[in-house]
């Protein structure tokens, strides 16, 4: 539609809310301090899971691209696997490391389904958000461990 085609980033001179530019200029002129935010706001399941979704997304993308690049490097992927095998860590350590590598991918996927449910409008009551949130955390840990032990 024509409306969607006009979706583009607004430049600062095109503020939709009149008075925006004047407001921020005034704060600058008065030299007003900004109240603290990240440093003082209580970490909650809502915000912590949300930032983890972003972080795990970046994390597993790095893993994916990193792994892909590694196949192009001299010696290929198997060369680096044999390098790592020389350290010969214990089976427990290998399991833990594999689980840690799997966790961002698993968490992001499980939380992704939570986001899809939200997109339909479901699960927004705060009790539901917390229930689904803890379920996401728990199942991500379990599935990561399972994947690490079986794969």
């Amino acid at each position, binding site marked *: *539609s024509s*409306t*969607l085609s*006009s*979706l*583009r*980033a*607004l430049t*600062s001179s095109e*503020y*939709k*809310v*009149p*008075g*925006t530019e004047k*407001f*921020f200029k005034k*704060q600058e002129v008065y*030299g*007003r*301090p*900004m*109240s*603290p*935010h*990240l440093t*003082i*706001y*209580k970490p*909650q399941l*809502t*915000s912590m899971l*949300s930032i983890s979704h972003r972080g795990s997304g970046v994390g597993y993308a790095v893993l994916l691209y990193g792994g892909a690049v590694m196949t192009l490097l001299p010696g290929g992927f198997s060369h680096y696997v044999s390098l790592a095998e020389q350290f010969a860590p214990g089976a427990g350590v290998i399991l833990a490391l594999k689980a840690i590598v799997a966790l961002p991918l698993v968490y992001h996927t499980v939380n992704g389904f939570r*986001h899809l449910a*939200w*997109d*339909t*409008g479901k699960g*927004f*009551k*705060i009790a539901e*958000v917390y229930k689904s949130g803890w379920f996401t955390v728990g199942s991500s840990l379990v599935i990561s461990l399972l994947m690490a032990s079986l794969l």
Partner: protein
Amino acid sequence: KQWYQRRVAITAGETPGEKPHMDTFKVDLNQCGPMVLDALLLIKNQMDPTLTFRRSCREGICGSCSMNIGGTNTLACISRIDPDVTRETKIYPLPHMYVVKDLVPDMTHFFEQYASVQPWLQRDEKIEYGATQLQQSPKEREILDGLYECILCACCSTSCPSYWWNSDKYLGPAVLLQSYRWLADSRDHKTKERLEKLADPFSVYRCHTIMNCTKTCPKGLNPGKAIAEIKKLMAKHL
């Protein structure tokens, strides 16, 4: 005797260039009412008369005394003081707002954003007030429950990290809840125009469903859900 420590963010209202700092006050809980606002008033009356904060109704309906108490945003007048005297309660102004003095943020832009969503009834024909009742079925009226009760205290918007980073262009949960209040009202005819006004990458779509807003609302409302409904309407009609 019960002593209770309270740290309150003090910012320079008078001396320019003075760095904002925290002041600590000890309050005897036996001499004080049960709510955080009572403690603030006690401090102002007996210890430091320069302590500055907004307040009015003292019953959680006006939205004046919204501030960050113990890490989350609520109304001071309905926030009970933590009876554990071994712990300090930290009180800060609403997060990521320009501070006028102490606990008083500049709310001008917040209200400008509210005005920008045209929070009044708009119909195709000219409304002759008092001529007829604009009727609405009980089911249609029920949709407005959980939307009309907003007191515009700004606790939700200032709990939203997205609003912290983009308050110039992102409208924030409070304003969007009210925008949805008018989108959902069966008596309003300008749904399409309202949605078109929201069609840009920032006004609505900086919401990433962080859900700090619903968690912190002192009136138990659900701005997160309202924004999700707006997104559904946008997808359906635009």
